[in-house]
């Protein structure tokens, strides 16, 4: 599913450069709900951008859904992002001038694909996410939680095996956040999709079955859920274990 081998990435900062990733190694072989957790500046968003073919690594090997993402051309990366993965962002996910249905269909519209089957798929997803009565609404008429659910539906349009979510609940209240986490977890199980979520919140990560803890541009440790069948952690335990891991690192 997802494999990173010694992935490195740096960015120029004035006359010097910042090492965002210092050799990340990570592997996910089964579908499920996973998290990458770390403080601000740990490199987790950079890692997600590389996995989602939005930014190439300086070195290392990146494999997602059987594709060597680090070797994709620009055109291949675009197609990869459109059909092989789904991406959900923290905010401004949706195009403000498009309706909920159109935003869900956006990858298809960009590909020039307007088949009825795709439309049916979009409506099914929106229905599954409890938004069947909001299909014609524009983003400004929807709550934050509803907007993120539409973003989830869009990410799943082409039934990708992998979905990346970058702090998907960063702008939401706790109730909406819980709803979104549950949706992601349930979809990962139902649709047999690998969902990798980047977060700094232990409560978000507690919904996952495995958490990769990052600090200083590398994976410092991996925490497995006590309850693999349900794929969940206790949030308090998770926070303590994470602190311990980072303290040791």
């Amino acid at each position, binding site marked *: 599913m997802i494999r990173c081998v010694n992935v490195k990435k740096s960015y120029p900062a004035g006359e010097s450069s910042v090492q965002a990733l210092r050799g990340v190694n990570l592997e996910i072989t089964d579908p499920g709900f996973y998290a990458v957790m770390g403080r601000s500046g740990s490199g987790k968003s950079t890692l997600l*951008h590389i996995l*989602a073919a*939005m*930014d190439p690594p300086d070195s290392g090997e990146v494999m997602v859904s059987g594709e060597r993402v680090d070797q994709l051309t*620009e*055109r291949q990366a*675009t*197609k990869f*992002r*459109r*059909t092989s993965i789904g*991406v959900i*962002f923290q*905010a*401004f*996910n*949706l*195009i*403000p*001038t*498009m309706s909920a249905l*159109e935003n869900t269909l*956006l*990858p298809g*519209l*960009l*590909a*020039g694909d307007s088949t009825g089957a795709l439309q049916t798929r979009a409506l099914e997803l929106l229905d599954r996410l409890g938004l069947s009565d909001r299909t014609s609404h524009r*983003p*400004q008429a929807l709550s934050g939680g509803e907007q993120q659910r539409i973003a989830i539906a*869009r990410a799943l349009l082409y039934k990708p095996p992998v979905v990346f979510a970058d702090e998907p609940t960063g702008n939401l209240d706790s109730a909406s956040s819980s709803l979104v986490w549950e949706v992601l977890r349930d979809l990962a199980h139902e649709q047999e999709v690998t969902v990798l979520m980047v977060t700094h919140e232990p409560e978000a990560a507690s919904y996952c079955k495995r958490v990769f803890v990052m600090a200083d541009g590398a994976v410092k440790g991996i925490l497995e859920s006590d309850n693999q069948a349900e794929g969940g952690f206790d949030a308090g335990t998770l926070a303590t274990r994470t602190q311990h891991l980072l303290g040791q690192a």
Partner: protein
Amino acid sequence: MLALLRLARSICLGRPSRLILLSAAVCMSVVLISSVACVMGSLNASFTQQIDTQVGLAEVRVVAIKGSTMPASVAESVSKWEGVHSVLPRLQQTQSLMVTLPTAMPVDESNPDGEHSVVDHRYLTSVFVNGINPESEFEARPVVLLEGRYPKNDSEILIDARVVQRMSWAYSNDTTKLAATKVFADPLGYMQFPEPFAGQRAESLSESISLNRGIGIRVGDRVEFARLFRDNVVLTVVGIAQAPPMGGRPMGYTTINTLDRMSRRKNQISDLEVKLQEGVDPDEFVLAHIDAYPGRAIVQTTGRITAGVEQNLAAAQMGFMLISLITLISAAFIITTGLTTGVAEQQKMLGVLRCIGAHRRQLGIAQLLVGFTVSGLGAIAGLPLGIGLAWILVKVFDQQLPAGLVIPPVSLTLTLIGAFGAGLIGALWPAWRAATLSPIEAMTQQAQPSKPAQIRAITIIGFLGIALMAAIVISGLTGQTFFWTYLSLGLPAMFLGYFLASAAVVVLIARTIGPLISRLFGLPESLLVRTVRATPYRHGFTAGALMTGLALLIAIWTNGSAAMRDWINQIQFPDAFAYGLPMSDEAIGILNDLDVVERTCAINMLAVETDAFGVKALQSYKTNYFGFEPEAFFDMVHVEFIEGDPDTALAKLKEGGSVIVAREFLIAKGLGVGDVFTCKDSTGQEHSFDIVGVVTTPGLELVSQYFDLGESMVQQAISSVFGSRADMIEHFGVSEPMLIQIDLDDSVPTKEAIDQIERALIGSGVLNVGSGARIRTQIEAVFASSFVVVSTVALGAMLVACFGVANLIVAEVSARKYELGVLRAVGASRGQIVRLICGQALIIAITACVLGTLLGLQAAWGGQQVNRVLVGMDLNFRPPPMLPIVISWAAAIFLTLLAAAPSAIRLNRSSVRQLMSSSGS
């Protein structure tokens, strides 16, 4: 105040690209306006210089009745009048001037490309010669010297650059024969090449051209006045003077004695300059002596001559002010759009400021300060650039603008004030927006969509403005009332109306053409269309700024082609004309004896004052009074009687006291058969004639302008009335004709016939000979040149607007950077993002094209009504040829896409991460 300045500074520096682009738009406007102001100032100064040369610096003139002379003893009598300080007599005649210069000519005439040898060859032209008193003439009537010195004695002559140009080999052998190339060629260009000398040989035509290009008159050469049946008079060229601007008569200066020697009537003068003693009032002086020489000479103040010309030159400022106003309004709209976009971008910052205690007034004033800064930067940069551009133009056209660069302080000051005004007015709406934002509203993440009701209201106001202009045009108002109402109300209302309607139009264009563009560009249909519809004012007003230049192009081409089609092309010129000041009986006799000439008609001409045309207190146009033998004239001329019948009209003309007027009088003033035509001569005396016919114009006024453009620009006479020669002599004392209308033998080619006539008339005082066909060609060439000049100005205006487009695209891309990043992240290619931006630019361009075309056509329609009312020109309104419309649309689309290119290129190079690395607002 310090806080306000800091706030304004942070707004300016918040997005430097916007500051630069908006300032650049103002800068370009100021460059355009200031360069036009300087060039107009230079043109006016050149005309004034020409008038000074003709009229002199004295206060009073005594002038022989036009075309004739008066005894030289008049000078002595006048000098004895009380109050006279000094007098300066002058005699003027048209003479044929000849010079023999070594020229490479074909050895075998049947082989013009073969060997050439340098032999003496004669060059000939007609010259308007001034016989002067060399000791005092050039102090009173200064002439600018290009080479040499003023003449001092009877054997010397000073000629102007027009004369030397006509007598150069290059001029004679210009195969294009177009007036434009001759007018703008450097008349002394041949002087940079060596002259050929006798005995030189050239192996080919091209070698001979290299030899001959240096042929022309130089200081020290001997020239001859060719005289019919008498010995030529030989003079030495001692100087070359600057030519009058915009063409005009080729001039020479020699002593009165020399000219008197060549005249049949001795001891004559044409006019007398009278310098008065200190404290003598010119008007009272003239009043006291007005009847001193009844029927022979006129006593007049020189102020009366210059006043009308200066008024007409000042009237040209009106057109300049109108163009300046439209350009600055365009710049103001660009600033409005740009700063309003800025307010939207900085909404959160403004909200935070309000939350921490900033007054609404402070936020509003800060925006005004930004507008002031934008216009200030633009004006400071634009003014020297504009003056620099004018300097270049004056250098390039130094022959036509001999007065050199003039920097008119009033016009430039007004330009600066206008630029600052544009900035402040443009900042009013964004200032109001910034001041009325509520803190909570300002802190919301997403911008509010435009309210349909608001767009509807603004569109309705726009349409009302457009309709107001149409109502004024069809209202039936006439004359001055129509002109001032149209200018002050109709034109601005129409202009603003199209601007306000642009928001609705861009939405309509997006809806109708957007889907097609989306399909062509491979974009989701809703993405492009909804993006434009989400911000209709930004897109619409930007299109509105772009439409101005396009509208100007369309209007000029519409009315220009209408003028060609309905006016010029309707005129049937006679075969040929001969022109002289005046035409002698000898010349007329010679013409009539030629085999190639079937018949002739002598025409007297005089510009008389009338109130039929123009705008009171702004312009005064004279009209041309043509006098001739009625039957002979109407036998030769093809005119159509619109009122009256030919037989009755001709009979009345022969009786005297009647005139036939051109159609323009009927259209402009409603003057027709049964009405009275009243005019004034140069003494101010009024003359009245019964109108016995209204005819289509035979184009005689165009012919006289063709032959004497410089004088025509000074006189500003339009249209014509036709009367008998007898009336002309009785009322105006003009007895000698200036123009001969010629019917040629159809079996002889026109060029050959003209050449024969020119050769036959050497030495007979004829200034010029031309065919009707050539006159038409020259007029068409002048029209074409005007189109090119105006089209260039219009393209310049469109270029100004492109800065507004660039600013909008930059702002749009910046505001939607994150959104564009999301699009890329979910599968949009770089190309699709770039095409999205280009699609927006294309919709703006198409909207500008539609609006500009409609505005241009409506402006042309209104302009035709103005012409109808002011100068009686009746044109049929029809759309212009397709070519200028296609060219202007292509230019608008190209310039808009060019303006969007930098942003599109930057977007294309940006990675997904770079796009998403900043927030969307």
